[in-house]
C-alpha cells in the first residue's frame, strides 16, 4: 500500500475533502442563520448556483479571484433579496418561493451559460495560495490545510465569526428571538422583518460565496447545474447542527472526507461501488439519529410568517 499512500497522495485527499467541504460549509452556515431567525431557506440551492455563475463570470472577466468571490456573494445576495421580499416582507410560502427560486436559478444560469460559454468553456487559472508560515510545513495537513487560497481561511473565519455573533452579541439574541418568538422581539422594539431580511441576505451572500468557491476553486469552470444538490445538503447540515456553527463545519468536512474516501478506495483498486460509498454519510447520520434520537430543536417559529398584532 505504501507505494500509493504517499504523502503527496494523502495530501491531495485531505485537500480534496476540504475543497469539497467548504461550499457545503458556507451553505450550511448560511442556512443556519436563516433558520435561526425563523426562515426556512429552500432557495439556497438557487443562491449557490447563481453565486457560482456570477463568481465565475467576474473572476474570468476581471482575472481577479477576489472580485469573483465578491460577485458570487452579490449574486447569491440578489436571489436572497427576492426571497426576503416575497417571504419576509410579503409572507408568501417559503417552500413555494424557495423551490421557484431554485428552479429559476437553474434555468437562468443554464441559459446564460448556453449563450456565453457553451462553445468556449473558459477555465480559470489556479488560485494563488497563502501559506501560513510554520504550519504549512507540516506533513500532509500542512499543504492541505495551511497552504490554501485565502478564501479557505476566510471561510473558516466566517464560521468562527458566526459562532461569536450567535453567542456573544445582541444580534445573536435578536436572531434567536426572531425564530423562537418573533412577537416578543417585536415588542422589545426590534424590527422582526429587518432581522429576518438581514438573515436571509446573509444566507444568500454565504451561499453565493459557497457557489463561487465551487466554481473558482473547486472546479475552475462554470457548468450548468454544477452545484448538484449541495444546497440541500447544506439544509440538512444546518438542521442537524442545532444552531451550532461548529457542527456545520464538522458535518461539511465529514461529507468532504467521504468523497475523498471514495476516491482513495477506487485509486487503491478496492472494488467498492461508488453508490454504496455515497450512501455512507447519510446512513451514518441516520444511524446517529436512531441511536441518540435527538429531539427536534428547530426554532418554533421556523417557516411561519410574522404579522404584528395577529395572533
Amino acid at each position, binding site marked *: 500500500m505504501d507505494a500509493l499512500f504517499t504523502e503527496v497522495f494523502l495530501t491531495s485527499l485531505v485537500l480534496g475533502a476540504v475543497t469539497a467541504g467548504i461550499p457545503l460549509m458556507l451553505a450550511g452556515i448560511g442556512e443556519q442563520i436563516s433558520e435561526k431567525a425563523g426562515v426556512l431557506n429552500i432557495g439556497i440551492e438557487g443562491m449557490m448556483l447563481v453565486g457560482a455563475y456570477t463568481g465565475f463570470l467576474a473572476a474570468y472577466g476581471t482575472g481577479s479571484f477576489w472580485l469573483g468571490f465578491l460577485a458570487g456573494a452579490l449574486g447569491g445576495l440578489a436571489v436572497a433579496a427576492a426571497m426576503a421580499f416575497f417571504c419576509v416582507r410579503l409572507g408568501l410560502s417559503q417552500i413555494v418561493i424557495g423551490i421557484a427560486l431554485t428552479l429559476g436559478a437553474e434555468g437562468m444560469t443554464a441559459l446564460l451559460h448556453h449563450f456565453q460559454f457553451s462553445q468556449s468553456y473558459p477555465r480559470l487559472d489556479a488560485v494563488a495560495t497563502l501559506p501560513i508560515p510554520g504550519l504549512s510545513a507540516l506533513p500532509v495537513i500542512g499543504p492541505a490545510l495551511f497552504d490554501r487560497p485565502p478564501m479557505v481561511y476566510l471561510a473558516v473565519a466566517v464560521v468562527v465569526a458566526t459562532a461569536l455573533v450567535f453567542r456573544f452579541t445582541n444580534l445573536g*439574541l435578536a436572531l434567536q428571538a426572531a425564530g423562537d418568538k418573533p412577537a*416578543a422581539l417585536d415588542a422589545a*422594539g426590534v424590527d422582526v422583518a429587518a432581522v429576518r431580511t438581514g438573515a436571509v441576505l446573509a444566507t444568500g451572500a454565504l451561499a453565493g460565496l459557497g457557489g463561487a468557491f465551487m466554481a473558482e476553486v473547486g472546479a475552475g469552470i462554470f457548468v450548468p447545474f454544477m452545484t448538484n444538490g449541495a444546497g440541500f445538503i447544506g439544509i440538512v447540515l444546518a438542521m442537524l447542527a442545532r444552531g451550532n456553527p461548529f457542527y456545520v463545519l464538522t458535518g461539511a468536512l465529514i461529507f468532504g472526507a467521504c468523497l475523498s474516501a471514495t476516491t482513495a478506495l477506487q485509486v487503491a483498486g478496492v472494488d467498492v461501488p461508488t453508490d454504496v460509498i455515497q450512501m455512507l454519510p447519510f446512513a451514518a447520520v441516520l444511524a446517529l439519529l436512531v441511536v441518540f434520537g435527538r429531539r427536534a430543536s428547530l426554532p418554533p417559529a421556523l417557516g411561519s410568517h410574522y404579522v404584528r*398584532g395577529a395572533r
Partner: protein
Amino acid sequence: MSALASHDHDAPAATEPVVVLDHVTKRFPGVVANDGVTVAIHPGEVHVLLGENGAGKSTLVGMLSGIQTPDEGGILVGGHEVSIDTPARALALGIGTVFQHAMLVPSLTVAENVALGGPALVRPDRRRIAEDLRRAAAEIGVSVDPDAPVGSLSLGEQQQVEIVRAVMRQSRVLILDEATAMLTPKGAEELGGLMRRLVARGMAVVFITHKLNEALAYCDRISVLRLGRKVGAIGPEALKAMGPKAATAEIVRLMFGSSAAVAAGDARPARTVPAGPAVLAVEGLSVPDDAVPVEAVTLAVAAGEILGIAGIDGNGQKQFAEALAGQRRQTSGRVLLDGRPIDALPVGERRKAGLRYVTDDRLHEGTVGGFPVALNLVLKQIGDEPFWTRGVERPATIADHARRLVSAFDVRTPGIETPVGKLSGGNIQKALLARELSGAARAVIFAKPTYGLDVQNIRATRQRIRDAADGGLAVILISTDLEEILELSDRIAVMDRGRIVGIVDNGPDARLAVGEMMSGVAA
C-alpha cells in the same frame, strides 16, 4: 349615543396629560374596536381601563405601544402629535407595555430577554443587566433570577419579569394589560403597591383588569369602554366622593349598561353538600415531570361535591390535571371513577367513562383555532356515532348539535362555521364548557376556568360549575384565584410543589387556613 356618553364624572386634572389618545378610531374587519375614543393619561396617576371582553381595551393599548395604528384620530405625547407606528417608537417615547400575553423569548434567559434591542454587534453586558434587574425587582418586592431560562418559568413568574423589565426601562408611561391575571392575591397586592410607588415618582400607569376590587383599590382614575366606545370616566375627586360601594355600582352600570349586580366576589351561596361515596378517587398518584413532579396525591370527590385545589401557579396543578385526564403518564398510584380503576385507560376511554377535563389553555390546547365552532364542539368525539357513521362525517348532525349547544351555553358567535379562534376569550370558554359538560359526565376537572374573563362571563361560568355539581357531578376546581375557590368549593385542597399539603372544609376559617398553607406557614 346620548345614553352612553352622559356619564362623565371626570374633572379637569391638575397636571398636564403625558399621553392623550385623541378621538382614535380603529376598525377591524366587521368590527369597530375603538370608536372615537379620547383618553388622557396623566403623570402620577394609575389610570384603570375597564370593559368587558372585546370592549376594545387591548386595542387601545395596542395603539399606544405601536402594535396597531389608529385609522382616525391622533396621539399626543407631551402635547405633540406623534405617530407610534412601531413598538420601537413607543419604547423611544417612554411608553412601556406589559402585554396581556407573555412577550418573552422562552429560549433566552431573563437577562438576555432584557438585553433584546441593544446595538447589534455589541456584547450585552449581562452583569450590569443582572444587577439592574435585581435592583428593579427588589424595588417591586419580587425576586427574579437573571440567569433563569424564561422557558423554565411559570406564566406568573414570566409576567413578573415583564413588569420588572418595564420598570427597569424607566418609562414615563407603564401599561399593564391584565397584568394581575396570573398573579397570586399576594402578588397582585404587591403589584398594586408598586403601582402606587411608581406613580408617586411621577410615572403614569395604565392598568387593565377585570377585577373591580383591584381596580378600585389602586386607581386614581377610571375609564370605561363598551363596544369600542368610551362610555364613561371617573376622575380622582369623584372616586373619593363616591366611596367603593357606589363606585362599583356605577362602574358595573357603565360597563354592562344595566344595573347588574356584581356577582363575582359575592359571598358563597348556601349549598348542601351531599355526603355520598367517592365518584372520583385518587390514591397516591405520582406524575413525573422535569420541573414539578407530582408526588403521592390522594383525594376523593363525591357526587355533587366541589373540591377546590388552591395553590400558586406552577405548583404541579397542570401536571396533576393532565394525569387525571390521561394526557400524561403516571408513575404510581391509582385513579378510580365510580370505583373502577381508569388509570390504564387512554384519554378517549376516560371521557367515555364520564371523566371530563376543561383545560386552562383554551386557545392552544382546548380548541383548534382555525376549525369551526361546530367541529370544536365534537373535537373529543371524532368518529363517534351519531356525528360520524362508519367514519363518514354527517355534517347536518354535527351542525344540529352545535346549534343546540351554542344556544344552551349562550356562545356568542357569528355562526357555527366561524373559526373558534375568532371568538373572544369568554366565548371560547363557553364553547369549551359546552363540549365538556354535555353528554353523560360523572366527574369534571376545571382548570383556571375564569382566567381572563370579564365579570359577566365569570359569573356565568361559575354558575355552570355550581350547576354541574348540583346536577350530581363530582367537580375538581383548580384555580389560582383564592376568591373563586372560596366562593365555589365545598372542600379545599392546597397544592404546593407537586404535593397536596392539606385539605380543609370550606367555612369561615378556610381563608386563613388555606392562605397559611399556600404561603408555606402550615405544612
